[in-house]
């Protein structure tokens, strides 16, 4: 059964130095507040796993939390580069960052394999690209039925999955809807999990088609209204596209990034009030 706790307690109980952590959410429902809490608790040497390490991982990498990144696409969607990620890869600042690089389809299938209790997933992909030469977890495999050459990708089994959802009930059953990414697979593939939610309600209103992670599949639930910002929770908040654009400038410069981190992460309370729209 999931425990309903504060965000600070949930992160302290699950994310340890050296862990492999998957914070998922595909553009929608990105657990930004939980990422900030990991930074505040000054976790180090994390292997960060995520299909799309956008701003949330730019912040964790820039803050020095990461040793390695397992990913598919590292950019600021529709805006440009992730400058903290680039500074780590190009200049080893604040420290070197090891890469394990895949395609999105490969990452999605690796989570599926992990959730399925299989050592690998089979797909058509990667062939004709430079990716297999530079990354681990990709191999050619022969179909035992047709003889066709296919691609195997190794399962992802993170220590911890962290996601954001619209709501949970008091028992810790979790419901979310809209763009659902790979969050269910990430939680089921991981040994531990944290779900931040917009609200905890007495009873989850039935919503056909909405994903429910039953309480017994989830470790910790924390109510963090606005906890996806600048990402969003459909029906609760809107994507703050202005922040994504502003991040390009904030993150370009090490000192400016550091000042932003001091003010908005280290200087912010562990369980913040709902986002009020003050950008940066």
């Amino acid at each position, binding site marked *: 059964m999931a425990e309903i706790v504060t965000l600070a307690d949930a992160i302290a109980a699950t994310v340890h130095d050296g862990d492999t952590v998957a914070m998922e959410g*595909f*553009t*929608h429902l990105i657990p930004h507040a939980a990422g900030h809490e990991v930074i505040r608790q000054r976790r180090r040497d994390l292997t960060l796993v995520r*299909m*799309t390490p956008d701003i949330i991982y730019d912040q964790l990498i820039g803050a020095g939390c990461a040793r390695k990144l397992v*990913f*598919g*696409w*590292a*950019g600021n*969607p*529709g*805006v440009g*580069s*992730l400058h903290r*990620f*680039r500074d780590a*890869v*190009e200049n080893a600042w604040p420290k070197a960052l090891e890469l394990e*690089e*895949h*395609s*999105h*389809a490969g990452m*999605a*299938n690796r*989570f*599926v394999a992990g959730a399925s209790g299989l050592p690998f997933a089979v*797909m*058509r*992909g*990667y*062939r*004709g*690209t*430079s*990716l297999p030469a*530079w990354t681990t977890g990709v191999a050619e495999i022969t179909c035992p039925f047709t003889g*066709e*050459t*296919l691609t195997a990708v190794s399962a992802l089994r993170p220590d911890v999955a962290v996601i954001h959802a619209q709501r949970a009930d008091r028992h810790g059953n979790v419901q979310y809807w*809209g*763009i*659902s*990414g*790979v969050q*269910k*697979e990430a939680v089921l593939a991981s040994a531990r999990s944290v779900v931040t939610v917009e609200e905890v309600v007495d009873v989850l209103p039935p919503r056909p088609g909405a994903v429910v992670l039953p309480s017994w599949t989830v470790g910790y639930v924390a109510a963090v209204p606005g906890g996806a910002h600048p990402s*969003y929770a*459909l029906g609760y908040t*809107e*994507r703050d*596209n202005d922040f*994504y*654009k502003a991040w390009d400038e904030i993150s370009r410069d090490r000192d400016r990034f550091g000042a932003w981190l001091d003010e908005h992460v280290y200087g912010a309370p562990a369980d913040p009030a709902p986002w009020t729209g003050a950008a940066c």
Partner: protein
Amino acid sequence: MLTYTPDEMMTITAARSMRNGMTCFVGIGLPSEAANLARRTHAPQLVLIYESGTIGAKPDHVPLSIGDGVLAETADAVVSVPEIFNYWLQPGRIDVGFLGAAQLDRYGNINTTMIGSSYDRPAVRLPGAGGAPEIAAACKEVVVVLRQSRRTFAERLDFVTTAGFGAGPASRHELGLSGGGPRLVITDLGLLRPDPVSCELVLAAIYPGVSVEQVRSSTGWDLAVSPDLSELAAPSAADLTALRQLLAGEPAPATAPSAGGSTT
């Protein structure tokens, strides 16, 4: 006489390449602008599919990301990311993959990973693969849109992120890439198509006011020119107005074709 920019001509040409009723797997950036312009102009039934799992999205503005709320709210169906790749893209159900690129070579292979001689310490680190390798592998055809220069049209790629025609005509079959590969490359100077025999990209059309020499000197390899080279017409006033309204975030005017999908 109408004035317009090379980027406007590129986006309008890219939009024109989308046929009404196609299913289109849309990349972010220039492809998304062009696909949304096509829906507002000649192709109101173009089915936009984003890798966020939104199928048949009908946004009234260009989304900043591939996962903006408007995509989910207007889609015919919303599916998970494993599902969009495994059930929808991989079997070859989707007509056209519409991609951007940082670098491209003569066989339409794409680099969006890194520039430099060392993968571990690149001169420029780019975002990486995203959905592109599988989109380019499985869609029935691929359209690429990018600005043309000696830097972007490279003799040799530092990293092949996404396969076009690989090393030549036999590669896609040998690699088991089920889709047809690049059909068209649209730039801010003109339009390239693969030669049907060699699969090498050939300059097929130029824009008004652009010379062949200008295109060749903006290409990092010895670019072949089609014997049937044409000059494309300048954009119409209606196309330019539609594009500028789209990029300004204005809704489509009521006189334009209705923003219909398959839901009505």
